[in-house]
């Protein structure tokens, strides 16, 4: 890993944003549930779950503003909960729907390419090398 905090320049910046968004949403969702992270975060880490959710939501809104309009429209369409917006493709298999993806669409995703999505389930995909 290089020492700068910027993303590797081979990654599509919009894909990076989508992945960050989904991670933020995962943390948010879990802090909502009583049987989720909230009690653990309170007990061991002295986190106020309501306050933490507010901070996470603010960050989510900020990142959503940075999505290109077409990407944002798809992002909002894919899943109402947006918990599976971006999924990995491992060995040619989409981990959103577990269907093999044509190898032609599973090239390197760099800044010069369009964002790719799974033809079967519609999720944005990122290829795990």
């Amino acid at each position, binding site marked *: *890993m290089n020492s700068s905090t910027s993303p*590797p320049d081979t990654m599509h910046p919009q894909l990076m944003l989508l992945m960050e968004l989904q*991670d933020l949403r*995962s943390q948010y969702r879990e802090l909502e549930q009583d049987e989720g992270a909230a009690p*653990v975060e309170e007990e*061991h*880490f002295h986190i106020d779950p309501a306050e933490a959710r507010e901070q*996470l939501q603010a960050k989510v809104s900020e990142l959503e503003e940075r999505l290109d309009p077409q990407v944002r429209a798809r992002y909002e369409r894919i899943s109402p909960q947006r918990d599976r917006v971006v999924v990995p493709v491992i060995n040619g298999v989409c981990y959103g729907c577990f269907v093999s993806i044509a190898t032609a669409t599973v090239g390197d995703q760099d800044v010069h390419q369009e964002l790719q999505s799974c033809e079967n389930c519609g999720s944005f995909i990122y290829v795990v090398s």
Partner: protein
Amino acid sequence: MKLRKLFTPESVELNLSSESKDEVLKELIQLLGLDEKSEAILFKTLKRRENLGSTGIGKGIAIPHCRSLVVNELRLAYGRKPEGMDFQAIDDEPVHNLFLIVAPPLEVSNQYLPVLGKIAQFAKDPEIPAKLEEIQKPEEFLALLEERAP
């Protein structure tokens, strides 16, 4: 779930070289052996968790943790900084022992939170810091988990 089973010798680093919080998070992430893109995403997500409040829980222990789509199973790493480092811990004391916990967004087996609780419990055992200090090889760390977190 036994904690021992969640670590491998490769996920244990007894001499972390980083001096700053950001660098040490990256060093811990590297122990998981992810690709570069995944490392970058995970770093951002862990940082955002730290921004909510330090995972330095006091007594020299930090447990950075998050859910991230870059892993597809629960992943853990342990790093030791013998001389200690500033991690903005809740007690403002230097941190020596760092446990990294990363879980996928959704898990069938729901191990993440119980494991997070177990690690916190293990690390807070008053006898553990001295035992961690004595460790010479990753295998001894695994043996300590086996013994103290059965």
